C-alpha cells in the first residue's frame, strides 16, 4: 500500500513535470553551432515551439485555415537566415557538407540537391515509415545562408497547397536536372 502511495506521488511529476525534449524527436536537428559559425546576428531568426504553435494555429483558424491546420501538427519551427561575407562562404559550405553527412547517417532523405558555384541547397525529409516527421533545408549562396528545421507531423500536401500564399511555386509537375 505504501509503495503504491509513493508511486502515486510520482504521477504528478510524470504528468506535469515533463519538459518537451525536442532533441529526442525524429525530425529535430541541432543547429546550435550556427551561432559560432557566423560573426553577425541572424537576419531572420524564428524559433516557435508548442504550445505556442498550437495557440497561433487556433488564432489563425478562420483567417487562414490552411496554415492553421498545418501548424497544428507541428512541434517546432526553426529558421535562421544570415548575410554572408565572402570569406565566410567556404566555411559555411564545409559546415553544410558536414551536416549533410550527419543527416545521411541518421537516415534523413535528401530529395533536393542543388550544387553549383553560386549556390548549395539541400532539402531533407525525415520519415518514420508512415509520416514525414521532419523537414530540413540547408542553403547557402553568395548573399545569404538559410537553415530551416521543421519538426512534427508534416503534411506535404498542405505545404504544397500553400502555393500562392507564401509564393511557393505551384506544384503540379516535377522536373529535375
Amino acid at each position: 500500500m505504501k509503495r503504491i502511495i509513493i508511486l502515486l506521488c510520482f504521477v504528478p511529476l510524470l504528468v506535469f513535470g515533463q519538459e518537451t525534449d525536442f532533441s529526442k524527436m525524429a525530425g529535430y536537428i541541432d543547429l546550435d553551432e550556427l551561432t559560432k559559425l557566423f560573426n553577425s546576428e541572424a537576419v531572420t531568426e524564428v524559433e516557435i515551439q508548442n504550445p505556442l504553435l498550437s495557440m497561433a494555429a487556433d488564432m489563425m483558424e478562420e483567417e487562414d485555415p490552411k496554415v492553421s491546420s498545418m501548424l497544428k501538427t507541428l512541434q517546432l519551427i526553426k529558421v535562421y537566415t544570415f548575410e554572408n561575407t565572402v570569406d565566410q562562404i567556404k566555411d559555411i559550405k564545409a559546415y553544410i557538407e558536414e551536416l549533410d553527412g550527419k543527416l545521411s547517417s541518421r537516415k534523413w532523405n535528401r530529395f533536393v540537391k542543388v550544387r553549383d558555384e553560386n549556390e548549395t541547397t539541400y532539402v531533407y525529409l525525415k520519415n518514420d515509415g508512415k509520416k514525414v516527421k521532419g523537414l530540413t533545408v540547408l542553403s547557402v549562396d553568395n548573399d545569404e545562408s538559410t537553415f530551416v528545421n521543421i519538426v512534427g507531423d508534416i503534411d506535404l500536401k498542405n505545404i504544397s497547397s500553400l502555393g500562392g500564399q507564401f509564393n511557393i511555386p505551384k506544384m503540379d509537375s516535377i522536373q529535375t536536372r
Partner: protein
Amino acid sequence: MNTSCKIEEDVLIQYAFGELNWLQNLHVARHTKTCSTCWQIVEEYKLLQRSFKVTETFSCPDLAVESIRPNQPSRRKTYYWRFAFAAAVIALFAIGLSKIDRTSTSADYSQADVRQAQNDARTAFNVLSRVMGKTGKELGGDVLPQQVAEPLEKSISTLKPLLYGGSS
C-alpha cells in the same frame, strides 16, 4: 479428581505447584500422608511441574517474535517510516513544483506572444518558400509537386530513383 475426599483437585494442583499458603499447605500435606489417591495426584502434578522446569528454553528469532506480537516491536519502526514518508512527499512536491515552473503551458503566453508567433510562422514559411522557389528555378521546375508529395508520405525511398535517376 478424588471423589472420596473433600479436597478439590484444584487445591491439590495448587499444592503441587506450591501456590497455597502455609496453613492450606499443612492441611493438604497431612491429608496426602493418609490418602494415596490424593498423594498420587499431587505426585503427578509435581512430576509435570518438574518436566516444565527442565524444558529447554531457546531464543526466538526476531521475525518470529514480531509475527506473534506485531504491534509492540514495530511501533517504533512505523514512526520512523512515517517521518521518512512525509519527508519524501515534501521533497517530491518540491522537485515537481520546480519542474512545473520550467514547463511552459498555454497560460504562460499572452495574446501578444501568440500574435508574434503567428507572424514568426508566416516569416518562417516565407523563408522556406523563397529557398524552395529559388531551388525550383535552379532545378528548372517545381520542387514539391503534388504527384511527389503524396507518395512521399508512403515511402520516400521509392522516389529516390525517380528524383536522382537511381542514385541517392
